[in-house]
């Protein structure tokens, strides 16, 4: 079957989708957006987290057909999504094209990572706080943390733990991840 939906602000069409396929599979294998990670395929790890009509969900548990006509934001579109949120329409054309999204990468390596690319504040905070180890859990954590800071600008540690309780980090770097979210919240409230 064919699925039409909006991904990172742009209309997309996926063809030859098998009816039992997950949204995660469509994003990764049919649209070439491997940012959302596939780890457990049973809702346990959160590394496939995307926004579906604004709501954080495990894309491995959404049937592709259920995304028909709806809006999805993946980690590849997060920088643009965050920018639109802060400056509204004045930023110009909304959305991240598939080509842009496919090529999306945090430029540079080591301590330079991210310099010269536009990152969302939460992505920058993860880099600055050293919250990325192998990076497998990072896309899901970024999407979940970004949504937390969108609805709660001054989260307590308990709020952060609760919001991220569905995201597992196999490298177990949770303290740095907490630091990163606290840092992003602090920067957000300072307006930097």
């Amino acid at each position: 079957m064919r699925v039409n939906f909006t991904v990172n602000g742009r209309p997309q069409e996926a063809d030859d989708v098998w009816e039992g396929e997950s949204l995660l599979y469509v994003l990764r294998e049919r649209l070439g957006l491997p940012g959302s990670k596939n780890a457990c395929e049973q809702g346990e790890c959160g590394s496939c987290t995307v926004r579906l009509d604004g709501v954080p969900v495990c894309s491995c548990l959404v049937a592709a057909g259920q995304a028909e006509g709806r809006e999805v934001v993946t980690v590849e579109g997060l920088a643009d999504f965050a920018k639109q949120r802060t400056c509204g329409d004045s930023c110009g054309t909304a959305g991240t094209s598939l080509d842009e999204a496919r090529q999306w990468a945090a430029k540079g390596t080591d301590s330079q990572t991210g310099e010269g690319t536009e990152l969302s504040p939460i992505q920058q905070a993860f880099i600055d706080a050293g919250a990325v180890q192998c990076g497998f859990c990072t896309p899901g954590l970024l999407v979940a943390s970004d949504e937390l800071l969108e609805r709660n600008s001054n989260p307590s540690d308990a709020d952060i733990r609760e919001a991220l309780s569905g995201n597992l980090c196999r490298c177990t770097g949770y303290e740095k991840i907490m630091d990163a979210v606290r840092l992003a919240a602090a920067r957000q409230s300072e307006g930097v």
Partner: protein
Amino acid sequence: MDFLRPASWEEALAAKAEHPTAVPIAGGTDVMVEINFDHRRPEYLLDLNRVGDLYEWEVGEETVRLGASVPYTRIMENLRAELPGLALASHTVASPQIRNRGGVGGNLGTASPAGDAHPALLAAGAEVEVESAARGTRLIPIDDFYTGVKRNALQPDELIRAVHVAKADGPQQYSKVGTRNAMVIAVCAFGLALHPGTRTVRTGIGSAAPTPVRARAAEEFLNAALEEGGFWDNGKIITPSVAKQFADLCSAACNPIDDVRGTASYRRHAVGVMARRTLTWTWESYRGTRRASEGAA
């Protein structure tokens, strides 16, 4: 496989009548796991996401009519006062991502003994509203709904429309045993509701029998003991021997199995502990509100 996408409740019923083997999918948090792991290849998937009615709830005089697809997140946020037991249970479901998608209809449809909502529904008192195109609507009392391991009283052409849950008329509690707070399938769970209006107590046990069950003998014992001692009126602390007997009878209501999550004897023991604790918590809260209203009088 065919993907059916009804745009309304009527269309959904018609599709289910035409294809009784169709598997309804709403939040997808159970169904998609089975499909991802190739445990299930339904001929038809019946997507209910476009049926807006299923995402609504109405608070009435006596009951809350809760749409089958109202996500657990909404229950926690909006129905804590009316359905405290179910709101507590909802908060223990998996993770925010799962609570954003899953709802009570899925728990009822799957009818796994480990579903988090069941003990709260049993304790509060509820009726499941189901409908078919051919025979219309019927209400199934929650006590008759679970018929076996992952089996329920639904006919093949029926869909779950809503659940009518009695509004709390007294304190309710919910307790669940697992290895951590998030992302846990219950080792066992317990729900308890005090109903001062009828001077009764109701219970619900999860994951400790082939189906979710009430501890009826324990309820009858406690109802009689509370009546006899005048507890509802004098608001005294429940005697430890009464609490112990209640806990033992709750353990005895279990018919658990050994599995990877826990042994049968552990489950029986843990249910007794949860029964005693939830009784203490709810009774303390009942005494608190009694004192407050007496103080005000």
